[in-house]
């Protein structure tokens, strides 16, 4: 009897997977569509906007790999390069699956639990799979399914960023478990608050601006990264052995791919090939540019020579910082954001880290946490209705001092959930499989110990 039931269950869920709809949630069909940010939603599909969003989705995936994988991979020691890359590609597999199965629903479906997160109406993409040719009311000028897959790419890269903090020492199984839980219980709720149509930060009294994920992506991952670094402890030999980047050419390739991919991340967040997307594109590029100059410039002054790692770090810092602001600010403001990010993240990655002595291996906190926070605040300062056309989206410089407060509230709330969530999840994962690789495994390197392979066999 029992086997019969479970056989029917399995059959039912496969059917559901294949057809993409199920009856008990039929009434929730339009939820996801409404959840999309679109003040004056044009109901007709537009091929230009669709083309741009298809490309943007591909670009954001490229940010995770090869982009981030190379950026991070170059910074670790040779024996851990595959470990980093494996994290990235495995996340591409796992987070995509989770997003399809329940993540999208928890993030963008109508809120439950007092708006803490979305419901289960869009589980397994329910309601997102229109029949061919049938006119469906779209939330924007692109198919809702495209919005879903675009957001999926963000869901992949965000835990990927955290990996920088525990690189070279976390067990692979622990990483997998951690990211699955973190995505579900930290990312999805914060995404719901900030971007869902009924999110408490998306509109209303606490409206917090986050154009492309400064808070959702960078602040949450950066803060969680710091906690990971603290709770996992330092790498063996940290502070005694030298641990220089083993391949800065990879770090450079990765950084510049991130730069290119970020156009999809930020300008894509306009969800259309619109003038706002162009604004976001320009802001993104200029912040990266001035971030590069700022970080490399400080080094030039302080140590006599600008370094390529500094230039790359500055570019990424600028990109992180402009993320929440991209579609709300003028190009000039973006340049200021880039400079500030370059300077502040430089200080975070050098003085602060060495002062407190935690081992945030690849500066996931120093760049994404700090840069994300600074960006959130400065968005509240520089946002202008001139660019977004939305009077609600203006900042301190246009006299809306409330916006800075709201940005702080938004950032604070995200920070809170990230820290509490990460703490609990790490404890759970530790209890289940243990967090750190064994000492022997760490010395041998994660490539061999976790994956049984070597990165380079050049002889």
């Amino acid at each position, binding site marked *: 009897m029992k086997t019969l039931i479970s056989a029917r269950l399995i059959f039912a869920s496969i059917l559901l997977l294949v057809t993409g709809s199920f009856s008990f949630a039929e009434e929730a069909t339009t939820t996801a569509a409404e959840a999309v940010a679109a003040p004056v939603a044009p109901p007709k599909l537009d091929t230009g906007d669709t083309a741009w969003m298809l490309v943007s989705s591909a670009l954001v995936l490229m940010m995770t790999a090869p982009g981030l994988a190379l950026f991070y991979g170059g910074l670790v020691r040779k024996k851990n390069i595959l470990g980093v890359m494996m994290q990235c590609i495995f996340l591409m597999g796992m987070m995509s699956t989770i997003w399809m199965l329940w993540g999208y629903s928890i993030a963008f479906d109508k809120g439950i639990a007092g708006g803490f997160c979305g419901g289960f109406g869009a589980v397994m993409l329910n309601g997102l799979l229109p029949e061919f040719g049938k006119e469906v009311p779209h939330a924007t000028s692109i198919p809702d399914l495209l919005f879903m897959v675009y957001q999926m790419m963000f869901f992949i890269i965000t835990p990927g960023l955290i990996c920088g903090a525990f690189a070279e020492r976390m067990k692979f199984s622990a990483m997998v478990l951690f990211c699955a839980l973190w995505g579900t219980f930290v990312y999805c709720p914060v995404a719901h608050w900030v971007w869902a149509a009924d999110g408490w930060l998306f509109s209303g009294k606490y409206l917090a601006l986050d154009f492309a994920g400064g808070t959702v992506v960078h602040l949450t991952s950066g803060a969680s990264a710091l906690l990971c670094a603290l709770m996992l402890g330092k790498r063996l030999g940290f502070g005694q052995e*030298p641990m220089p980047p083993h391949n800065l050419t990879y770090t450079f390739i990765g950084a510049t791919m991130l730069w290119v991919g970020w156009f999809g991340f930020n300008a894509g967040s306009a969800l259309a090939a619109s003038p706002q997307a162009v604004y976001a594109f320009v802001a993104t590029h200029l912040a990266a540019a001035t971030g590069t100059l700022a970080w490399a410039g400080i080094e030039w002054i302080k140590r006599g020579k600008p370094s390529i790692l500094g230039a790359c770090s500055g570019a990424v810092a600028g990109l992180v910082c402009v993320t929440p602001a991209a579609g709300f600010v003028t190009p000039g403001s973006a340049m200021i954001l880039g400079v500030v990010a370059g300077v502040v993240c430089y200080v975070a*990655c*050098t003085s602060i880290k060495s002062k407190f002595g935690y081992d945030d291996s690849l500066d996931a906190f120093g760049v994404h946490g700090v840069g994300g926070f600074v960006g959130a605040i400065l968005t509240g300062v520089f946002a202008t209705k001139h660019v977004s056309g939305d009077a609600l989206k203006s900042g301190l410089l246009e006299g809306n001092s409330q916006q800075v407060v709201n940005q702080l509230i938004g950032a604070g709330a995200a920070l809170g959930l990230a820290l509490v969530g990460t703490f609990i999840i790490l404890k759970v994962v530790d209890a289940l499989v243990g967090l750190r690789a064994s000492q022997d495994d760490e010395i041998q390197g994660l490539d061999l110990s976790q994956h049984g392979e070597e990165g380079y066999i050049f002889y």
Partner: protein
Amino acid sequence: MKKIEAIIRHYKLEEVKNALTEAGIQGMTVSEVRGFGRQRGHKETYRGAEYTVDFLPKVKLEVVVDDGELQKAVETITSHARTGQIGDGKIFVSSLDEVIRIRTGEQGGGAI
């Protein structure tokens, strides 16, 4: 038969090789090494973390010669690898018990 091991600068290898070949030395083996002595390394900083890189890249040249050719070989290396600046390197000479050419099985001087 003597084995000469010379630690020299990278960019001197070509010159030394040519000089040795002209001096009639017909074979040699090189490998990549890193080392320090009087000449110490430099500092590298990566996002504020400073590392002293003591070991500098050098080339190790190994030449096996008949006893009679030792002096010529050493002098050739010395004169062509020299720049006069700290870090020019060292030459170590030791004795070999036997030399065998794998291809033919020849032993001794003829195998070199």
